[in-house]
């Protein structure tokens, strides 16, 4: 744990079974996320990744019925004892489908909606919008209908709405899965900027090549079990295990795992593109 004090998220002995389901969605989860950390969460569909985010935000158990065991804390506070507003101030959730959270007729109204609910006055709202626009500039879209935007723009609006609530933890559930490649690029750019802020970021993402460039640590969720997070370098080095788990490791990591087998390389495989280029040139230059 960093010097910043208590962890942002602390989950201990957590199991959760949704009402009318026989199998738990999460079982025996222990997970600690440090303040300011960027954590990637990966795993097959239906393995419990979204449920993990709901649990961290406290949507589970407050908005869902089911069987709960264990303890979840946000900045040292038990989520089951926090109000909805307290939880919203601590952790904000962005869904895969941005439209799922739109309610207003214009982008500006959409951004302001949550803030008015917080009881902020006009000046405070202006200030917050200003701070959000430093990260995600949406001003030229303010008068548009949120439904009338490109996929990437919609998701940027959705993220901005959550950021405007100024949560310390940002939880993103496959934010790029439902949008086109150009939109994906926009969202990964937003994630890159978020990485440079004080926010604690937890993102569920299938694209490991993109995640490799962002995550400090990564954890694998499989069949409701959350494996301990590993530093990105260590995580992506386990190429065979990732393939075994049904994931697609970055192609550069796969390449170096094979080169290691062929005896041309030893050491941890590079998992980001530019370091891989340097390592490959090294391999070929020193016969």
């Amino acid at each position, binding site marked *: 744990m960093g010097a910043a004090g208590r962890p942002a998220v602390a989950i201990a002995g957590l199991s959760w079974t949704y009402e009318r389901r026989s199998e738990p969605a999460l079982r025996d989860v222990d997970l600690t996320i440090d303040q300011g950390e960027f954590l990637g969460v990966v795993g*097959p569909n239906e393995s419990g990744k979204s449920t993990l985010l709901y649990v961290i935000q406290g949507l589970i158990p407050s908005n869902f019925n089911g069987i709960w065991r264990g303890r979840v804390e946000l900045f040292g506070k038990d989520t089951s004892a926090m109000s909805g507003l307290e939880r919203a101030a601590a952790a904000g959730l962005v869904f895969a489908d941005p439209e799922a959270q739109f309610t207003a007729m214009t982008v500006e109204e959409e951004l302001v909606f949550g803030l008015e609910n917080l009881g902020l006055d006009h000046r405070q709202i202006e200030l917050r919008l200003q701070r959000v626009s430093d990260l995600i500039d949406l001003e030229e879209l303010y008068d548009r209908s949120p439904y009338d935007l490109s996929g990437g723009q919609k998701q940027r609006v959705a993220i901005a709405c959550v950021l405007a609530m100024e949560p310390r933890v940002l939880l993103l559930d496959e934010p790029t*899965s439902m949008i086109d*490649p*150009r*939109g994906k690029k926009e969202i990964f750019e937003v994630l890159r900027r978020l990485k440079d802020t004080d926010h604690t970021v937890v993102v569920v993402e299938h694209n490991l090549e993109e995640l490799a460039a962002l995550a400090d640590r990564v954890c694998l969720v499989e069949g409701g079990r959350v494996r301990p997070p590993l530093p990105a370098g260590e995580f992506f080095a386990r190429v065979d295990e990732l393939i075994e788990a049904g994931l697609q490791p970055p*192609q*550069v990591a796969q*390449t170096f795992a094979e080169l290691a087998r062929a005896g041309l390389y030893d050491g941890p495989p590079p998992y980001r593109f530019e370091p891989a*280029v340097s390592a490959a040139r090294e391999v*070929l230059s020193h016969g």
Partner: protein
Amino acid sequence: MAEAYVSVQDLDFHYPDGTPALRGVNLEIGTNEFVALIGQNGSGKTTLGKCLNGLLKPSAGAVLVDGLDTRSRGIVKKMATRVGYVFQNPDHQLFNNTVFKEIAYGPRNLGMDEAETRARVYEAARVAGVSESIFDEHPFFLTKGLRQRVAIASILAMRPRVLIVDEPTTGQDFRQSLEVMNFLERLWREEGHSIVIVTHEMSLAARYSRRTVLLGHGQVLADGPTREVLSQTDTLARSDVLPTQVTRLAQRLTDLGVRPDVILVEELVEEMVRVHQRHRRAVG
């Protein structure tokens, strides 16, 4: 290239509001090909897919399927047995309340009797990997991957020669994506269908398709063997498409003797081993 089964001739398409989506497209697809249609959003790839089976009609030029013009009368039924189109979102196409009825809908609509319809349903379900045990279930309650298989089975039941699948892997995890692609490959290799996928996933196009057509701004920018098209970095950039990591890595190593048209991980490894050994011999 195989003998043309689908022939696209100087095809223009504009949407009712006048927006041009395709301009001067020429393309031929044979009876047993595996083709990937790639390109940025708005490049026209989905529109082209829909023109291939007459879902959309040319604004100018023509699309001929098995010699039939897609604009001719009564073409819908004739097309059903020739070119099938599977939507990106299977929910756009599933509307019956059981899996069996869903798959049986096409054959029944083609006027087949119950015995023939049943035979077609069982065959299509087997090929598509849809178990008989879910025939009475409502498609809505199946997983996305299974709904997509049902959607494919319902098209296969009409036995089209060419199957167009729009974004077969959207929303699926990697293992599920491989299952879908392996299945399409089997239809191509063993059942003799032509497969046309519309996709953003370059690594899957690289592994499965034998031919790739790159669209940009409604025009064909490249059409050829997948290896050739997917390694033309500059041409791909014209439609905002990035080559896969291995291709980009290989192209940063060409000065050391690595081929620039590597599209698969195992090819890059093989290539690096080859260059490394040659280098060692030269030094030693």
